[in-house]
């Protein structure tokens, strides 16, 4: 087990290192000097050279990468060349907003989606199951930014039930809650459908397995069969899916943050791209990548821990 | 009569741990022996049968003979050429002369190909495209007693017995000298088992092909086999003429297997030799005689030294106290 955890963590680290390397290589392969792009067409050669050296771009690629990791190890993501603030400070200032948004969205989706999927599986081919099925597909297929636009249009502009922009006043919990409702809904809606379908399918599969027939053949009450014998197995795949889904969640968060002008790492990336602020783009893409890798790693570990079959084989 | 296949001291190993895990845990030998020190020969035109229970290594041995697993030690001579050291060209020639019948009748047929394409697959693989494939398909189907229109069918449209016949037809396509059959009757009903065994026997009589049969079903062995070997934990424990094995088996394991077969007669005298416990793990082979943990006749010395070989008159066994 320990070996497995170490292996899995090592793999995560290797992937992050490779990902950073890919980003660096991309910057280098792309025609055009980032410093020149940053400073615009009217910059002098001197200004570009100063900027290049300040960004570390004048050094060979391997040195740049090594330096970057050296700094990363100390929690230093470099300097924002425009505001002269440390990138780490900027990124970690925005990160909590995104994390809260994602966490709220996925909790809300799981609370509705998983029971819905269970119910559909247990009442297969009833009217409610059919309706849930179609609604689930409709939910899944709606892109997050379209949902965001419509909820903004309907609930914020027309009905004015919820505020349209920002994350709410600092320290005012009620205001913050009001501000998170629409964005979380926009991200979570497709996940309700997704989780409902996933749980339904895996529940149906588990309910068809021999050991469930055995449990019934021993006359166990249906409640015990469903909740103790089937549900535990049926929920296993959702852990993996949510772990891997972190990537989609981050992407969806980016759109919603922009639509609702809400602070967060997605909006940060977007804004820094508009202002061509490379160090910030790099830093925030890196942090979200680490976040994503960490969440897949954790979900793998949780899965291994939940399933005695995997646990034993480690 | 000469031997078409001579297997000597073959050992097949598998990794039991990944390289990293073995290194961490200080395991210097992360392998298990699925087949260990096995020797036998198949005479031309005869059938050699290997009997063993699950996990005995019998299928592994068959795969090694077919060149699918590498033997770690020993030699496998086919008409004098060693399969274990063949280069790609020699292996290709070898594979033209042998064929394999798989355990799962339907699962061993490529699901998207029609029966006609399936049984002419060997011609295509070996570049024999000048053959009239249509005629060959008809000939082969006729040989195994299926109507010619079966060539249009797909594997999932066949019953177990029919799929088995298609497997036989494919095995016969290139006039092989040796057929390796893994559990030829597995998954078939009793009434269909007979049909397949009759077919194999008829083909051997007509075509003179040699066969190497692997099975756990002792009942069928008597009717198809000339020589029989019994395998336990990757080793042969007894080997001899089939008649001799059935009439005067001497190894306790063989005796137990023979008697473990309930007769379809409620009044049958049951003289059963019942075995204790279960097959030990290959990771921890017992000391001394590897069968001693389950042997009903275990006695002094069985758990200490490896049993001696008794060999006379084509009957070979390893046991401290043969019956």
């Amino acid at each position: 087990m320990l070996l497995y955890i170490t292996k899995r963590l090592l793999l995560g680290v290797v992937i992050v290192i490779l990902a950073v390397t890919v980003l660096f290589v991309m910057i280098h392969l792309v025609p055009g000097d980032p410093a020149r792009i940053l400073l615009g067409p009217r910059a002098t050669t001197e200004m570009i050279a100063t900027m290049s050296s300040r960004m570390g771009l004048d050094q060979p690629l391997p040195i740049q990468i090594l330096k970057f990791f050296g700094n990363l190890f100390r929690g230093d993501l470099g300097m924002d060349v425009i505001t002269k603030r440390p990138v780490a400070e900027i990124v970690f200032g925005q990160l909590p907003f995104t994390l809260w948004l994602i966490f709220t969205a996925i909790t809300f989706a799981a609370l509705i989606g998983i029971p819905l999927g269970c119910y559909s599986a247990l009442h297969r081919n009833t009217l409610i199951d059919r309706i849930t099925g179609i609604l689930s597909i409709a939910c899944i297929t709606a892109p997050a930014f379209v949902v965001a636009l419509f909820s903004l249009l309907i609930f914020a502009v027309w009905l004015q039930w919820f505020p349209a922009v920002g994350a709410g006043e600092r320290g005012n919990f009620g205001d913050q809650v009001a501000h998170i409702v629409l964005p979380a809904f926009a991200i979570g809606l497709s996940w309700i459908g997704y989780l409902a379908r996933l749980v339904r399918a895996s529940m149906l599969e588990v309910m068809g397995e021999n050991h469930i027939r055995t449990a019934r053949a021993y006359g166990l009450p249906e409640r015990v069969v469903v909740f103790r014998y089937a549900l535990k197995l049926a929920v296993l795949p959702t852990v993996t899916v949510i772990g891997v889904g972190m990537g989609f969640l981050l992407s969806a968060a980016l759109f919603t943050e922009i639509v609702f002008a809400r602070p967060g790492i997605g909006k940060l990336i977007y804004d820094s791209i508009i202002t061509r602020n490379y160090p910030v783009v790099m830093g925030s893409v890196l942090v979200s990548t680490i976040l994503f890798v960490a969440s897949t790693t954790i979900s793998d570990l949780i899965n291994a821990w939940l399933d005695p079959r995997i646990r034993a084989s480690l | 009569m000469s031997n078409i296949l001579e297997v000597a001291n073959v050992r097949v190993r598998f990794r039991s741990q990944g390289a990293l895990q073995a290194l961490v845990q200080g395991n210097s030998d992360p392998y298990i022996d699925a087949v260990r020190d096995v020797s036998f020969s198949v005479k031309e035109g005869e059938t050699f049968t290997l009997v063993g229970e699950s996990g005995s290594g019998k299928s592994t041995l068959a795969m090694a003979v077919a060149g699918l697993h590498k033997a770690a030690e020993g030699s496998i001579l086919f008409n004098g050429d060693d399969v274990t050291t063949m280069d790609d060209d020699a292996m290709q020639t070898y594979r033209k002369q042998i064929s394999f019948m798989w355990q799962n009748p339907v699962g061993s047929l490529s699901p998207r190909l029609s029966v006609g394409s399936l049984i002419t697959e060997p011609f295509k693989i070996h570049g024999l495209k000048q053959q009239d494939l249509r005629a060959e398909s008809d000939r082969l189907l006729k040989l195994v007693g299926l109507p010619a229109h079966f060539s249009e069918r797909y594997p999932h449209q066949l019953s177990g017995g029919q799929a088995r016949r298609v497997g036989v037809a494919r095995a016969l396509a290139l006039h092989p000298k040796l057929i390796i059959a893994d559990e030829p009757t597995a998954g078939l009903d009793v009434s269909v088992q007979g049909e397949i065994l009759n077919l194999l026997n008829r083909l051997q009589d007509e075509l003179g092909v040699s066969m190497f049969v692997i099975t756990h079903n002792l009942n069928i062995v008597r009717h198809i086999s000339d020589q029989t070997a019994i395998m336990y934990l990757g080793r042969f424990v007894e080997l001899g003429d089939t008649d001799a094995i059935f009439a005067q088996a001497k190894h306790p394991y063989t005796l137990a297997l023979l008697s473990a077969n309930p007769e379809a007669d409620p009044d049958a005298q049951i003289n059963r030799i019942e075995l204790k416990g279960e097959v030990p793990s290959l990771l921890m082979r017992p000391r001394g005689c590897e069968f001693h943990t389950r042997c009903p006749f275990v006695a002094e010395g069985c758990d200490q030294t490896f049993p001696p070989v008794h060999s006379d008159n084509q009957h070979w066994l390893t046991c401290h106290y043969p019956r």
Partner: protein
Amino acid sequence: MSDNVLTIKDLSVHYATNAGVLKALRHINLDVPRGSIVGVVGESGCGKSTLIGSIIRLLADNADVPNGSIEFEGNDLIKLNQDQMRAIRGNSMSIVFQDPMSTLNPVLSIGRQMVDIQYRDKKSYAEKLARSTEMLASVGIPDPAGRLKQFPHEFSGGMQQRISIAMALQANPSLLIADEPTTALDATLEVQIIHLLKELQTNMGCSILFISHHLGVIAELCDFVVVMYAGEVVEEGSVRDVFHRPTHPYTQKLLQCDPAVIAEKSRHLPTIPGEIPNLVEVPPGCVFRNRCEQAMEQCSTVVPLWDECRPGHFVTCHRARE
């Protein structure tokens, strides 16, 4: 007649399929006398699994029981509702399934599962655990208390089947249904399980309905035997009667075909040519007609009746009285 634990009368089971109504079981009659072991034998497609499914009332959703009754301890199981049926399952009637690897829940410990099925008893957890330990010991599992904490995959196939038997017998059922419990096991383990079943049956006094395709196992273990073919019972009687004086041509053929029976080395074994008829459009007359060497003219038109050819020996064949 009350000395039967289970009496099945005129039972039919149909499945609604895309190709039409599949008549999987047709007019089955079967008795399980108290304290005896009844074997059901038949080849694939004979309806053995459907028979079990209809007794424990766990049939697929598209199944329908148009006629017949299954009497068990004074109740007609067909008429019971799900709650009443559940009260019987695992209590006075238990089952051991074919594939031991998949019948136990993979993510719950053996102890948890064995305690769960005692949910009807008003005993403490410790008492229930003690009962399970005792049962595991009785099926020959070494260190039962320690192994209760383990998960199914940590046991070998033979051990898993022993655990299944322990679970089935834990509630002292009056009827144990064993669905090919030894098919997935090696011959030497099969013998062990058969002996275990026989021993437990003698000690606990339950009846066993034992389903198998292995004639030898039936002959050794059972008191009575029921031969099924294509969804019908073709012959039923004591093991001695049926095995020594098989009357239905199918039973005769089946006994001849078994390679184990043929002690003489033979290069040509007997077979039953032909295939099972399509059960969506069951042909008129006798179902075995197209494969029967003794078929007469009336076999293709008249359905043979359930006939007692000798006392206690029933058969459905026009030639039974000859």
